[in-house]
């Protein structure tokens, strides 16, 4: 597996990363800024998202309309989002337009106009987005799970709160931008077809003289067990379940991730087999590994019609607990085959590679190579996985259900 990864710090300390994929015609970059929902004042929930929205409504030489038209003209596929710890912006385009695309991204981050006459429109958009989640019970279920499990600061949703959005002023956005759009801990990662030396010159020119206040890191994140039910007039009950696991920066992360794979990766995984294939209880059931700074969790989801919800929850928990009986060598072999394929196919997408690199750097301070990852996975054994399970059994459960009736769950406080 060929791989060439570049790392560099601009003169202001900002990290730039690159992975050359010269077989592609495209290039993609992710810009990760240390401005998340955890940085919002408690009476301004939603400020991080509002600030990001306002930054895109006119910046540098571009008016609000120019930003959109310029990126459309260049044929740039883009997205932006806010998480607990970061604001991120991702763009992908043909490699020949990398420079003008970066210019737009830099303007958005460094020179937003914050036009007064667009604040109300940005606010209305944000309020609509917040309101629309009421029609998406599965997403609402996870929003509530996050709030319940990670508390006031780390459990915030990027959608904010109605009162926070209504109270937000232009000055709040400007202040948030000043304090948290910051080269210290910002990461610009690039993947695809590019000339690294040329890119460094461009990046230094655009971002090198950017200054900001010193970064203040988060305190430890601790999960809070508990359960809650939100009544909803629907046919299906949505079940979101979480328990503790080791986080992404833990030396044994891939042992824990391996266990999640046994539960949920692929059509022969235990949850799919037990809950859907054997019993026909659900259309969807899944588990995934989730990290919030130093706090790892496994998040599970199942959706089923109300009369079968209790059985679905019980079978899901039983299946998770069945890991204590050990791992079958055939299961581990399938897991490894899936990872090998995924690592090879990662080379087909500049977008997924650039965001993965930014994520790796944010969590680990380095970018592990595919070779290293492959070796880590190949080294997993049935014994090591069982051992890991025994040392880190599911505990500190959180459960949120949305649907006609609440469910019985005895593990919540175990």
């Amino acid at each position: 597996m060929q791989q060439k990864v570049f790392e560099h710090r601009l003169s202001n300390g900002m990290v730039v990363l690159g992975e050359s994929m010269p077989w592609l015609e495209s290039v993609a970059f992710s810009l990760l800024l240390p401005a998340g929902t955890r940085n919002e004042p408690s009476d301004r929930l939603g400020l991080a998202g509002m600030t990001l929205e306002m930054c895109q409504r006119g910046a540098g030489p571009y008016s609000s309309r120019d930003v959109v038209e310029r990126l459309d003209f260049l044929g740039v596929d883009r997205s932006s989002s806010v998480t607990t710890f970061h604001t991120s912006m991702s763009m992908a385009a043909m490699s020949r337009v990398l420079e003008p695309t970066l210019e737009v991204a830099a303007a958005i981050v460094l020179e937003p106009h914050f036009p007064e006459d667009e604040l109300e429109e940005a606010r209305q958009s944000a309020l609509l987005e917040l309101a629309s989640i009421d029609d998406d019970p599965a997403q609402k279920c996870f929003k509530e799970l996050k709030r319940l499990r990670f508390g006031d600061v780390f459990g915030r949703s990027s959608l904010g709160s109605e009162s926070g959005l209504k109270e937000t002023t232009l000055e709040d956005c400007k202040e948030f931008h000043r304090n948290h759009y910051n080269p210290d801990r910002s990461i610009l990662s690039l993947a695809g077809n590019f000339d690294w030396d040329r890119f460094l010159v461009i990046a230094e020119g655009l971002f090198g003289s950017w200054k900001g206040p010193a970064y203040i890191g988060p305190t430890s994140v601790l999960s809070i067990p508990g359960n809650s039910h939100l009544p909803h007039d629907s046919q299906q009950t949505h079940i979101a379940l979480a328990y503790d696991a080791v986080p992404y920066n833990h030396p044994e992360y891939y042992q824990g991730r391996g266990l999640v794979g046994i539960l949920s990766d692929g059509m022969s995984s235990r949850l799919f087999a037990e809950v859907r294939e054997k019993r026909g209880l659900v259309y969807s059931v899944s588990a995934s590994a989730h990290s919030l700074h130093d706090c790892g969790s496994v998040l599970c989801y199942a959706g089923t019609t109300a009369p079968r919800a209790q059985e679905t929850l019980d079978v899901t928990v039983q299946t998770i607990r069945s890991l204590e009986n050990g791992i079958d060598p055939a299961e581990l072999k399938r897991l490894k085959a899936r990872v090998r394929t995924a690592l090879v196919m990662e080379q087909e997408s500049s977008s997924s590679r650039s965001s993965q690199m930014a994520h790796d750097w944010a969590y680990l301070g380095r970018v592990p190579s595919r070779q290293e990852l492959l070796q880590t996975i190949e080294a997993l054994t049935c014994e090591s996985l069982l051992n890991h399970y025994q040392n880190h059994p599911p505990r500190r459960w959180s459960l949120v259900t949305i649907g006609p009736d609440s469910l019985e769950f005895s593990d919540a406080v175990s």
Partner: protein
Amino acid sequence: MQFRSEKLSNGLEVIAEVNPEAFSLSLGYFVKTGSRDEAPEMAGVSHFLEHMMFKGTARRTAEDVNQELDDLGSQSNAYTSEEQTVYYMSVLPEFQHAALDLLSDMMRPALRDEDFQTERQVILEEIAMYDDQPPYGAMERAMEGYFRDHPLARRVLGTRETVSELDPKAMRAYHQARYAPDNLTLVASGAVDFEQLLKSAEAMTTQWKPSQAKRQLVTPTYCSDKLSMVHPPATQQYTLQYSPGPSYCDDARYIARILGTIIGDDSGSRLFWELVDTGMAETAATFTQEFQECGLFCAFLACAPEQHDENWEIIQDILGQGRDVPITELELELAKNKICSGMILGSERPSNRLFSIGNAWTIRRKYETIQDASEHYRQVTLEEVQRAFEALANTTSVLVSVGPEAEI
């Protein structure tokens, strides 16, 4: 990049876009069957059958199928639409033979009674899931209202009633009629060894018998209708409008797609600037849907119920502005750039190319490179888009609105 195609002695066509530089390859069986090919009382059988195809064969149990899909490290799935059922997997090149063996065997499923009963529950869950989700069945209702007794009026998932009534015997007969080699295409893309693929496919499908499966193509008589549905738990109002558009076989589809992008793409379009950027609507979009002999030009709105009427009026105004606010050169250029660039970015994964070439071949019997497809868009003129825009003003359309309260 090289295109290859061959017909096996049993009538099965094998096509591939071979790219020796690719890291992976994708394989798929494209079955020319979907909800439009079902008898009304069997609505949902194509989709139900798609689920059953993973439930084992004469030589594999359901568990074997799932385990082998994972053994191959594959990314695999299937989907059913009005016109097609597609089974596909992406694997590393070394697994080409094993992947084809599994996928080909799956095309001859056991369809065991007990699996049928369990899987019926999964389908009913899927129907319940979509019933709970916006736009709460509005699309299905709009198709029914627009197409009436045309085969395209039928629901892909069927209804709770038809799915509950289906029996395995009828499904077996449907499978036999529709999954014949002359109604299937084996499609491959990426790092494909085509000679090997042909040899393996010939050996694996030698028992398959052609069935001369037919599809009824009917020129639809469109109906005008307005329908309001109440879904009390909804908090937003969702409105969908279907008008006539070009079919998947009509070159005018490039014009309609460009027009859909200019009027209602999710960023930079007329509806975006008027309704989304201003925070008046959560979604306001136009897009096309294309079928073999006909197509749709669709408009969609999602917003707060109290803002709905005003927003919908604005959408109607914008759709009717063909003469007053003509399309500009800039709008046309931005739309072309967006579409063409998106196509190239998307094509970097062989798995995405699989669908482009498979769909084009099964419905239109044509192969096009990315460059060919880009060229079609590049050649669309301002006059053509402008004419299509003006034609939007007076069309037959069906409108379905669903929200928390009656009467919109």
